[in-house]
């Protein structure tokens, strides 16, 4: 004879509900993790190390003070120092092989806005905003890490805080960032 239990007390149904929930929550978790975790780079370039030995941000990211994009260093710039260093581990050998083949290193972008957003580094650097304000404490990171919540509200909040109401008309104008 079948035991008279309501459907929601049956073991099989409960197990499947829990499984479905687990898959959903797990999937969401993995999804969120992958959007926040730094992407795999061709060479795990250690920022902390290089900034620690005294290299300025602008030595490698030369465009930041003069133009819209900061730019990434060429392989030649790495080679300028690394030619004199003994390639004692895998990563250093990778640097050497890229340089000797005269190839550019295919870095994966980390700090990225959508195509319809026109960001410009130059006015920010001129206004004295430090790199850390926006990119986090890169000096203590190994690979560059993406920063969360770099959305339109973030831009506008800071623009409002750092400007007079007259200037904010310009700094909040759609045509300043979207065209």
């Amino acid at each position, binding site marked *: 004879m079948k035991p008279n239990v309501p459907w929601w007390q049956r073991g099989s149904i409960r197990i499947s509900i829990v499984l479905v929930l687990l898959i959903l929550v797990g999937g969401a978790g993995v999804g969120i993790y992958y959007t926040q975790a730094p992407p795999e780079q061709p060479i795990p370039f250690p920022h902390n190390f290089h900034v620690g030995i005294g290299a300025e941000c602008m030595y490698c990211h030369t465009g930041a003070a003069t133009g819209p994009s900061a730019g990434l260093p060429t392989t030649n710039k790495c080679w300028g120092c690394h030619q004199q260093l003994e390639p004692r581990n895998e990563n250093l050998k990778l640097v050497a092989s890229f340089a000797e083949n005269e190839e550019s290193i295919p870095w994966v972008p980390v700090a990225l806005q959508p*195509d*319809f957003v*026109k960001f410009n580094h130059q*006015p920010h650097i*001129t206004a004295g905003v430090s790199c850390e304000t926006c990119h986090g404490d890169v000096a203590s990171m190994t690979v560059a890490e993406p920063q969360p919540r770099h959305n339109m509200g973030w831009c506008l909040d800071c623009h409002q805080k750092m400007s007079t109401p007259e200037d904010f008309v310009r700094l909040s*104008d*759609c*045509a300043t960032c979207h*065209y």
Partner: protein
Amino acid sequence: MAELLKEQEETQKWGMVIDMDICSGCQACVTACSMENNVPFVGEDEMAYGRGLQWMRIRRYWEGEYPEVTPTHQPMLCQQCGSAPCEPVCPTFASVHSQEEQINVQVYNRCIGTRYCANNCPFSARVFNWFDYETPAPMNSYLNPDVSVRRRGIMEKCTFCVQRIVHGRQQAAAEGREVEDGDIVPACAQACPTDAIVFGDLSDPESKVSKMSRSDRAFKELEELGTQPKVIYLKGGKSYGG
């Protein structure tokens, strides 16, 4: 009303003068505009269906009674109205007035393609992206990185080359000076072989464009609608001047 008009006068900024006496209708401006702004060339068939994508076009019309007809032409583009009919009808506020530059901006990422704005535009200056057009190689390398590449389903129109306006402003700020007359030139004016198109700041009475706009040949298209166009035409007809 008078107060309103005065306020409009005071807030105006960028403007354009097109001298129809020296415009030869060569279409160089149309080409330059499309190249600068990543506007795809849609081809003959699509054009015939009325799905042409041109931010600037040369309107052709006939003057006189048959058989004494002569063709004339007029460049037509978004008139950047001070009181624009396209703006209040947008349900998503994608068609907005730029307070800073006093032009009509179309925020592509905000646009959902209802096409209300185009239907309300008395100048038919807005075009709609019906399809994603492929840019054949090697032309895809010509895409301008300063302008977003729009997807299908989006309304677009002449922006007075706002990317150049913003760049000129930022360049001037970086050099610690004000924007000067002639710093900012939109693609059409730059390409015009006869210099029929002049662009500048209407709020500065000394700028070239202001001076030209005070000519007695000056008129605005459909001025009676009260949309306050920022494009001023100088009457042609080859009956003026020398």
